[in-house]
């Protein structure tokens, strides 16, 4: 029955891959005989291409349905765009010892420095997202190993006008406070570090603002009268944990009228309701499972307590694991955000950085880090600097930040260990300070020594040191 309706019918491209694979086998069979001649023809490049193709062939699933729909057509188109980058080196980047493009560190840094600079008038659409531009760029630069301390004063000054008198941050002067803007602003200030940056945040009014965002069903809205989704829950807890803000709701929080007393009331249950029948996590109960919201959900629970406890308590972990591993596209190696969607470099983080959190809860390594790193190095670096969604797309600070964060999570072993930071994180929302890097990934590597990205905190997505310094500062401080 099934056979009749679904005769596997490889596309011409797939047939091409298969025949390539035969050719490669032929080559390797006769390797000894022709070795010298092959070398003479010249080129290490050809050898790398052959190796890449052999790899792609080993990753591709032989099953393919004949039925064409919009989804399969766009998937085929995408693969046709991505494959040349996985096989060869259309950007003419220098290659690492594994035959993959090196991390274009200087180019990416130059791109991010530019992203912190001035924008033309046509970019007015980013007016409410300026804190994001700053955060993505600063985080990208620190991931690349650049020191941002010379920008400290400018960072602090940039956010002064966007702090709302009633607490929290907006996109700029006069804009209403918003949890996304607040998240990006606080992370930027924490990265800047130092007393001036820390003290520029009005933690007392922040506490009141967050209190107004807390909803009766347990979740958080993004803004006064704004949408309630899982970003709100995550952003609120990130800010509270870093700034050591009290867990008790402020007296003026509307949720208090409904018997709630703390920010965590019903929160775990609300996040739990965001897990869908597919196993992934959605923006709000009932919506479709999505990679970016999955990271928010996992991050939120990992702030509420040790992931070993909270994740297993509120999520069906086997189902989540199944969904999460399904996000890896084959043979692209990068992640998509939802079932039957296309690979996109930003999910290198949104999905890729879920893994340390999930693996802390299940105690095993289950993701394919080298396939992801291949996608990032080969297909997600823009020729002129900056990282991208997929070949053919423009670079932006967003994709640069999150491809790099994903690469970091692939290269380093982020592990949870309660004994990590003995002097901080023992009080409320201290679980994120139990993380540390326990050496490098020991599996199959595709990055050279010069392709390393710095360690990134798996929940806060800023340098470990920056997060710990900030928490330490506010733990030592009395009152607001």
């Amino acid at each position, binding site marked *: 029955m099934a056979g009749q309706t679904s005769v596997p019918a490889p596309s011409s491209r797939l047939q091409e891959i298969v025949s390539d694979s035969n050719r490669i086998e032929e080559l390797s069979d006769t390797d000894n005989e022709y070795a010298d001649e092959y070398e003479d023809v010249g080129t290490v490049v050809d050898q790398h291409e052959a190796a890449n193709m052999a790899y792609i062939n080993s990753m591709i699933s032989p*099953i393919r349905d004949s039925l064409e729909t919009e989804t399969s057509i766009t998937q085929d188109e995408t693969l046709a765009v991505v494959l040349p980058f996985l096989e060869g080196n259309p950007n003419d980047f220098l290659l690492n010892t594994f035959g993959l493009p090196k991390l274009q560190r200087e180019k990416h840094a130059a791109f991010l420095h530019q992203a912190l600079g*001035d924008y033309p008038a046509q970019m*007015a659409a980013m007016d409410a997202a*300026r804190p994001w531009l700053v955060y993505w760029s600063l985080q990208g630069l620190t991931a690349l190993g650049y020191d941002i301390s010379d920008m400290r004063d400018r960072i602090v000054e940039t956010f002064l006008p966007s702090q709302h008198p009633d607490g929290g941050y907006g*996109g700029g002067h006069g804009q209403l406070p918003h949890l996304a803007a607040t998240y990006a602003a606080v992370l930027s200030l924490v990265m800047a570090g130092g007393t001036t940056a820390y003290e520029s945040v009005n933690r007392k009014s922040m506490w009141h603002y967050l209190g107004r965002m807390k909803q009766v069903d347990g979740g958080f809205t993004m803004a006064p009268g704004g949408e309630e989704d899982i970003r709100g829950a995550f952003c609120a807890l990130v800010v509270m944990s870093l700034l050591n803000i009290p867990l008790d709701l402020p007296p003026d929080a509307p949720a208090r009228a409904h018997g709630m007393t703390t920010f965590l009331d019903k929160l775990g249950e609300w996040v739990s309701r965001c897990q*869908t029948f597919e196993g992934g996590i959605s923006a709000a109960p009932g919506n*479709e499972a999505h990679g970016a919201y999955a990271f928010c959900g996992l991050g939120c629970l990992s702030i509420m307590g040790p992931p070993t406890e909270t994740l297993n308590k509120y999520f069906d972990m086997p189902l989540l694991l199944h969904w999460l591993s399904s996000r890896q596209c084959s043979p692209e190696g990068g992640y998509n955000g*939802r079932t039957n969607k296309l690979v996109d470099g930003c999910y290198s983080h949104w999905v890729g950085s879920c893994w340390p959190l999930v693996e802390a809860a299940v105690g095993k390594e289950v993701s394919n880090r080298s396939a992801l790193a291949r996608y990032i190095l080969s297909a997600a670096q823009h020729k002129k600097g900056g990282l991208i969604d997929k070949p053919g797309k423009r670079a932006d600070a967003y994709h640069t930040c999150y491809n790099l964060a994903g690469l970091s999570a692939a290269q380093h072993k982020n592990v949870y260990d309660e004994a990590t930071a003995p002097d901080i994180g023992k009080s409320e929302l201290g679980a994120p300070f139990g993380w540390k890097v326990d050496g490098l990934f020991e599996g199959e590597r595709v990055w050279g020594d010069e392709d390393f990205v710095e360690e990134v905190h798996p929940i806060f997505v800023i340098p470990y040191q920056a997060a710990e310094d900030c928490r330490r500062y506010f733990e030592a401080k009395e009152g607001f």
Partner: protein
Amino acid sequence: MAPTFYHDDPKWSNIKPIPQNDTARPLAAIAYTDEYSEAMSYLRAVMAKNEYSHRVLGLTDHIISMNPAHYTIWLYRFKVLSELHADLREEIAWLNVTALKHLKNYQIWHHRQTVIDKLGSPEGEADFIATMLQQDTKNYHVWSYRQFLVQRFGLFDDEGELKWTEGMIEEDVRNNSAWNHRYFLVFGGKGEQTADKAIVERELNYAKAAIKKAPQNQSSWNYLRGVVRRNKLPTSTLKDFALEFADIEKPDDVTSSYALDTLADIYTEYQSKREEAKKALDLLATRYDPVRAHYWNYRKRLLE
């Protein structure tokens, strides 16, 4: 179109604009046009004195046309509409035109949601959404908004809604957003409540028919498995069906890796079938889904 200014407009003469007070060298600064800059300065001024008026409504319209991603403007606009007891039908008509231009925009959908919520009627919304989805069949905001409508107006058992969703799946059986919406319609309103046997049967058959059209489609398999799990049917319910697409005794004839995955789960449940489960997982790891070899091997280790 000629730029609109307020400083020489007598209707605005009583407003003292508040310019953006950025410091000397802000990061990621935008070189605003004079028009945008001035409009924002007037907005800051009217917001500071909580003015809710028709002229402010016009001002928000103006700013949205220059920057539709400005959540502050949208939130304030809704406040103005509420205070003025404005005709919300008119607002929806205006939004219809604006939304088409800015599909991937959180604000516009949230605004629409709050307006429709207040209006108390979903009339016309289904058609509007259908138009929007024609441009982007998996748009997350649009589908989430559709779920809001179902929840808000109790459309879980609405036959038209189910039919429409079926049409979307019919059009592209791999549209996961449509499958998710179907699940939401059929089971989302029920909480922990058990579903009718007949409905469960109908859903199983629906998913199976879709799988037969395209066996290597995770959307329909996830749905099928989701229905089984939610209604607490034994996993083995799907054994015969899965065997149509994968059989560990015939490792060369697998037409769906998801069937193999399903079989692995079924065999895992039985102590006596551990070896079969391992075989299925091995086939996935080495042959039919090698990119996830670590994951399949992890599942295998759990069996030991």
